[in-house]
């Protein structure tokens, strides 16, 4: 049944994707009590009143909301029935909706209440079939499809361009599905499900149906989850390489490097898969940018490794990759992995693609310089007198920073070229572009600071690491904290506590390394012999 196509939010997709996204939205889980998402959708459709209306499966985690509408705080899941009959919740939702309509500011509790309302209306529109747009339009796949609900409203002139006998057949097929499901008759189900699927594909659509291969591809992407495998491989590669760096056993090196290769290939495979599903270049949402930056970060580490043949570089990069991919894999509410249509100005645009890929690649280079910078800081903290190592790693960090500066400068300018091409304004003081410029200025200031002699050794490394906060602001902060401007495709909310937590940890780490460095008092002035003048 997963291969039934559905028209959902402007895109044709396998019902598998729709079911997965719905289940995630309702429960926050990928399976519910052993049932696959598609099984859940048919369960809701056929046995809602009997089973699901009383089943506690709608996730509400926000404590203040539960307190305010007196839902039991110990529980995280609630049944649709108990939420519907909760009068204070209903009142809260209505008031919040009115405020939202009037464009007044709404509180966090009200925001979450509207979220619950959205969950409830999603489940009810699945149950009524109103969002199940699975009846194909014989005029083409780019036309409006019809929902299951429109089948029930025969009296009105809802759109259903089928012959009467086709409608009858459709009714019969759904009936046999319903009977098989309610009777838990696996044999009957296995008979009627493929018949229903084939009827939609071959009969109703008159051949205008998504290709089976592309549906299968997306289902494979949903279930294989290449980016999760990628971080698992990166993590093991990191362990292997770390063991090698500590112990110098060549077996560790072999395992580490081959796992790193596998991770990189899986990562790339995931990208190719995703791009061929979305039919557009890779970076169009916050989620994709995180995945892309993790990928390019490792690529750049290998580039620098080619020059210096030091395995510390890829090892440090894999830390960032693991972090990025784990976040992407586990925070669907912050980094939405869904594939949605783009806003008009972002479509089919050569300059946009070049601009975005350049800018995000610069983030990757700076991320690498951040990781290597932290390696140097670690050395300051734990082996403060090992100046040759410190200077060598500082040089690697500097190399990554150089790549970043070139790409960020070019990317920011390409952004201007794109904006000029799309709406005739090279520079429009959009916060995203302003923050890209700020990040560039900050890194440039650090580079100049090195020439003035203000920043040597420790200062230079620490400032480079701190400069990454400007990238963090340009990348995450503009969309999630400032929330204004034209780059609104990536707006979202949440995750601030994670980011602030990281920032505090990072600053504490710098502070610790600094106090150790001050105590040891080793001359760490950059050695011009290994460190370039420019």
């Amino acid at each position: 049944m997963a291969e039934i196509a559905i028209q959902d939010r402007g895109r044709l997709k396998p019902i598998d994707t729709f079911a997965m996204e719905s289940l995630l939205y309702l429960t926050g889980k990928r399976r519910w009590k052993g049932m696959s998402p598609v099984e859940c959708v048919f369960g809701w459709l056929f046995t809602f009143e009997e089973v699901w209306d009383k089943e506690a499966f709608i996730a509400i985690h926000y404590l203040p909301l539960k307190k305010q509408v007196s839902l039991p705080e110990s529980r995280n899941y609630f049944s649709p029935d108990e939420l519907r009959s909760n009068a204070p919740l209903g009142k809260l939702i209505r008031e919040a909706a009115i405020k939202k309509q009037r464009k007044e500011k709404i509180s966090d509790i009200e925001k979450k209440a509207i979220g619950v309302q959205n969950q409830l209306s999603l489940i009810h529109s699945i149950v009524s079939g109103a969002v199940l747009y699975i009846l194909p339009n014989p005029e083409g796949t780019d036309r409006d499809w019809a929902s299951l609900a429109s089948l029930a409203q025969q009296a009105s002139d809802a759109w259903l361009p089928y012959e009467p006998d086709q409608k009858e057949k459709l009714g019969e097929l759904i009936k046999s599905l319903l009977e098989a499901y309610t009777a838990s008759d696996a044999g009957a189900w296995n008979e009627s499900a493929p018949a229903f699927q084939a009827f939609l594909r071959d009969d109703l659509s008159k051949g205008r149906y998504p290709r089976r291969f592309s549906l299968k591809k997306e289902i494979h992407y949903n279930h294989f989850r290449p980016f999760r495998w990628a971080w698992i491989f990166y993590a093991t590669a990191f362990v292997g390489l770390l063991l090698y760096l500590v112990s110098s056993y060549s077996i560790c090196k072999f395992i580490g490097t081959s796992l790193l290769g596998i991770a990189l290939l899986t990562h790339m495979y995931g990208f190719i898969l995703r791009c061929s599903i979305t039919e557009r270049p890779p970076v169009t949402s916050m989620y994709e940018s995180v995945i892309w930056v993790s990928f390019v970060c490792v690529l750049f580490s290998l580039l620098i490794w080619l020059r210096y043949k030091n395995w510390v570089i890829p090892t440090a990069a894999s830390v960032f990759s693991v972090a990025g991919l784990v976040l992407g894999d586990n925070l669907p509410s912050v980094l939405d992995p869904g594939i949605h249509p783009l806003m008009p100005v972002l479509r089919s645009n050569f300059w946009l693609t070049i601009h975005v890929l350049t800018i995000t690649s610069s983030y990757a280079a700076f991320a690498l310089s951040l990781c290597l910078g932290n390696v140097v800081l670690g050395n300051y903290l734990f082996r403060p007198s090992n100046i040759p190592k410190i200077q060598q790693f500082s040089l690697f960090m500097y190399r990554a920073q150089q790549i970043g500066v070139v790409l960020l400068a070019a990317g920011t300018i390409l952004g201007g070229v794109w904006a000029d091409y799309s709406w005739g304004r090279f520079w429009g003081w959009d916060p995203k572009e302003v923050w890209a410029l700020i990040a560039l200025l900050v890194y440039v200031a650090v580079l100049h600071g090195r020439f003035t002699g203000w920043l040597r050794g420790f200062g230079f490394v620490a400032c480079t690491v701190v400069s990454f906060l400007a990238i963090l602001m340009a990348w995450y902060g503009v969309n999630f904290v400032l929330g204004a401007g034209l780059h609104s495709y990536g707006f979202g909310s949440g995750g601030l506590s994670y980011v602030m937590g990281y920032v505090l940890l990072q600053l504490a780490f710098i502070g610790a390394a600094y106090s150790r460095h001050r105590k040891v008092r080793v001359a760490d002035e950059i050695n011009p012999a290994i460190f370039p003048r420019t």
Partner: protein
Amino acid sequence: MTGAFWKLASFERATFEAFRFFSSLKLAVVSILSLAVILAGGTVVESLYGMRSAHLLIYGTWWFYGVLFFLGTNVFCAALSRYPWKRHQIGFVLTHAGILTVLLGSFLTMRFGVDGSMPVTEGSAGNEMYLPEPELVVVDEETERRSRYAVPESVTEKRGRVLEISLGHSSKLAIDHYIPRALTSRVISPSPIEGLGRPAVRVELFNDQVHIDEWLIHDHPGRAKELPLGPAVISFNKLWTKDAEKSFLDPPGPKPAAPGTLTVNYRGERFELAVDPTLSSWSPLGKTGFEIRIARFLPHAVVENGKLISRSRNPVNPAVDLLVRRGLKELEKHTVFSNFPEFSTLHRKHQNKNTGENELGLQFRLAWGAQAIAAEKTGRLELVQTADDKRLLYRVFGKNGNTKGKVTIGSVIGTGWMDLGFKVSEWIPSAVEEYVPRSIEFLSGSDSEYPSAIHLRTESTRGIASDSGYWLTEGVSRTLTVGKRRIQVQYGRRRMVLPFSIHLEKFTMGTDPGTQRAASYESVITVKDPESNSEPKVTISMNEPLQQGRYTFYQASYQQGAGKTMISIFAVNYDPGRFVKYGGALLMVLGILVMFYMNPHYWDKMLGVRKI
């Protein structure tokens, strides 16, 4: 050196000192970081108060240009101070020259460029573009002299002397209140002049699910003001005689029913047509210009084989097929069911693609036989103000009978349908309505949605106000009488007339399948240029601009105007600094690349090879 230095004239010495100051690397670090901090502040302002405010407070100010100029000087002196440049400094020089070129290009854009927007309505032409700055245009109606005044903007609401304009003859025009983001709301208050107001009631209708809170103003003598609310209607009327009061509370019995009545609602007007053989020819619908013809009458409508037919002559499920025309053009086809008033009556192919609604705005109901009168009035709440303006009476037609009586302000009365109760929360027997803008906070998103507003008043030069003033929101004009003169004041964005006009033939918006979300915009236009004979037809779409003369037209967005006509909005732009900026950017990136990746050793080798 020191001796020679002191022999220099003081001006030259100052120049030298300044040069040394500006070429310092330490100053560069300080000025780069300062710029970063200012820019960060700018983005915070933008997030709190919107794009325009950030421009007014930071990016568009003289001091910000000063900061950029300072940085430019810094870059220039730093680059020059290393002269004569050595081979390994090629990258350094290119980069810094690039930065200076970009700054120069930006200056050209800022000083000589034009960046505005131009809305054009489908089927008409436009040659005026709007710039972001607001202005007040004063037109003397007698001499037709136009004077234009820039209105100073501010980020927040401002009261007091915003702008004063002398009109001569010892009178002046003063703006004493400025609102940057105005939400206009209706304010209803007792009329200051007795006998000049209109009756007004504020009615609330509610049950567990709905809460309706509306003002009804009785503005047409002799006709009830009606508020249609789905199946229910609230009406408000003013009675003129004592007898009318009596017949309101004790209406005469129902008229003998026509076999069927078709009720048509059109923009608050109601027409009743008897369904009889005469309606099979075209009948006019009041003064609306529409004509209606009943094509088919189906007393017992059923769907058989996908077609609507009548199974018998008994009125089991009465329905009519009817056609609407204006002039000789048939516009819509409806099927109206007596038993199912909630069905959409319009045939699908006539439905508006975007709203799913009936485009003409006609609403039909069919009432049949004995139910005709009863059904017609079910769900009706009628309020009247008595002839002496002292009392408010009501009557409710519900399914379970009718109730009536005198209204007490604030007390709840049940209606008998859908558990609805109603109350009259305010009643002004003689009221005036005004539209008053109120300043609203900026909410993240777009601030261009809300126009600015100014409050104007005329004064004598001695400062004595001669009237209480008027509100003008952007795009509004008003005629004032000052002394014996009549002047027109127009408030809006500064306009610029282009030497050619753009005629919008057609605007289309593509949507993502199955949604109403815009996927693409496209405008088909013809350019009407008096200097050329041809009128080329061009398509402007997202990312596909049109270059016309020195201006470039970009598809920016769209609006839906009155009567569902589409207005395409173009961004119009002239940028003399464009290629300077591009050149500078190229130089800069090239310079960084050379600086980082082509060290002197490499250069020598490359040049050395060439020599051989």
